[in-house]
């Protein structure tokens, strides 16, 4: 059903439709509207879940670990400082193979403190073993939650998922959404049926430690599950498409790629602005395209290498920076994916801490890239540095 609503509310509604039994989250800007909406659903009988008002984020995700291990579908949401505070549990939940879904309303990290958008938070946890989905608009932000549970709970995967969407830029924006109905979601997403759970009827020990005889293989199996997720996403995304008309089988999505000479690689909401800019550049005769990365973990190396195998140059936008490295994580990994190709790949770190990104910026970046200039911060206020 089409409706116009705030991104956070759409996400909360999607979560409600997924029927989580335990919700545990701690408020932090700009994630708050999600958890407030869920609290409201519970207070008004619209969601039959235990809503645990925890005292910090580490507890928030820890409660999800317990609830998930006990056999419940669980949900959390956070961002930025909150995500960093729960880091240890983030790694832990993945290693324990618990299919928790957590929304990340992407935000910069401090110091300096910033409540504004970039993707440093989830990107900084790219090693942790969680799948990471990134939404371009609120329709995706909503739909990817259904996909997330489906994939996370699949027996072949059993890994938790971040559904990331840009804080404020998406979370606080009203726009039209096609929201699924409960019966549609129920059809797509069956009840959570864990392979194993904490249960006096069949006692199992969860979270044992691994000596050097075993540890490597456990990590390997996690990495394999990540890699298997590509197929599982393809399947679940296609099924979604068949049922509801929006196909999420692709880890990356191209826009006017076919004949593109310069391709921008980007994630999240900036892709919208990029598309508008591309349309204008196309109109001016420039062959520019976009490759959007929707799934960052597992990282679609092969897909990217293939999609970009014939282009002249690549400009990667990063709303994050691995300080002291050559640039942002996306640029680094795109080059990794395309290693050996000789196609110039330039990175641009931009939009950190809420710095606005406009069509003209995209155009300027394309020019820079055409001139071989890149691997730098973009959009600096010269007077400040």
């Amino acid at each position: 059903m089409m409706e116009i609503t705030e991104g956070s509310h759409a996400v909360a509604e999607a979560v409600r439709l997924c029927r989580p039994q335990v919700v545990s989250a701690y408020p932090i800007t700009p994630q708050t509207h999600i958890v407030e909406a869920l609290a409201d659903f519970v207070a008004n009988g619209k969601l039959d879940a235990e809503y645990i008002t925890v005292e910090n984020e580490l507890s928030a995700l820890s409660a999800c670990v317990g609830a998930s291990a006990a056999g419940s579908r669980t949900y959390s949401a956070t961002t930025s400082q909150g995500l960093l505070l729960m880091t240890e549990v983030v790694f832990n939940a993945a290693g324990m193979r618990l299919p928790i879904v957590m929304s990340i309303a992407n935000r910069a990290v401090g110091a300096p403190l910033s409540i504004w958008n970039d993707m440093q938070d989830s990107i900084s946890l790219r090693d942790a073993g969680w799948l990471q989905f990134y939404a371009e608009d609120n329709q995706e932000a909503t739909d990817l939650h259904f996909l997330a549970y489906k994939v996370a709970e699949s027996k072949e995967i059993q890994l938790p998922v971040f559904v990331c969407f840009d804080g404020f830029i998406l979370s606080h924006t009203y726009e039209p959404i096609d929201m699924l109905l409960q019966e549609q979601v129920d059809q797509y997403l069956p009840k959570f049926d864990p392979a194993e759970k904490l249960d006096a009827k069949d006692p199992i020990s969860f979270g044992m430690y691994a000596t050097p005889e075993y540890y490597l293989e456990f990590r390997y199996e996690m990495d394999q599950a990540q890699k298997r997720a590509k197929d599982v996403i393809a399947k679940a995304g296609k099924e979604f498409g068949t049922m509801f008309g929006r196909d999420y089988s692709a880890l990356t999505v191209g826009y006017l790629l076919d004949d593109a000479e310069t391709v921008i690689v980007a994630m999240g909401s900036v892709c919208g602005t990029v598309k508008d800019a591309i349309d204008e550049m196309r109109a001016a005769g420039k062959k520019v395209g976009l490759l959007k990365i929707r799934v960052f973990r597992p990282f679609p190396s092969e897909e990217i290498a293939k999609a970009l195998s014939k282009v002249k140059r690549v400009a990667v936008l990063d709303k994050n920076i691995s300080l002291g490295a050559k640039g942002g994580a996306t640029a680094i990994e795109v080059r990794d994916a395309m290693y050996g190709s000789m196609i110039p790949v330039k990175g641009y770190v931009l939009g950190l801490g809420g710095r606005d990104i406009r069509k003209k910026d995209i155009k300027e970046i394309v020019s820079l890239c055409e001139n071989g200039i890149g691997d730098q911060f973009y959009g600096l206020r010269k007077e400040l540095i």
Partner: protein
Amino acid sequence: MRELRIHGRGGQGSVTAAELIAVAAFEGGVFAQAFPAFGVERRGAPVQAFVRFDDKKIRKRSQVYEPDYIIVQDSTLIKDVNVFMGVKKGGIVIVNTEKKPEYQVPEGVKLITIDATSIALRVLGLPITNTTLMGAFAAATGEIQFAALEKALSHRFNKELAAKNIEAARVAFDFVRGAA
């Protein structure tokens, strides 16, 4: 694509106004996008909110720099905030004031003033002007149909409250229509 910027103060409902305008526009078959200026502003501090309208899906995510329309909820802002900044030629500015329209708007921009506070006080019994100004906006710009506005308000508020707000919007709508 047309863009609207709303100026108000923290606590005056500018964001709600933007949302409701977007809802009404969408009701009328237009693609719309509404969002606040992302910030930490407290009650009383100057704030902004934005709406975009288009006939196709809106993908742009940057902030609004050159609005087609401006609503100023509180004319006390005008002396401290450059509320007319960037407004497009041919644009429309709506200012809530009980005074005469004596503001310096850029050339080629239409200025409409309306005493929304008085209307709101009279109809709602409260100096909350956001819904009143929606009526003025509908009349001044044609971006939203009054029927759609009614629907948006009915959706948002309970029956009694919706009726009052619709009434306030109606008064403003008629006032601006009449003035035009």
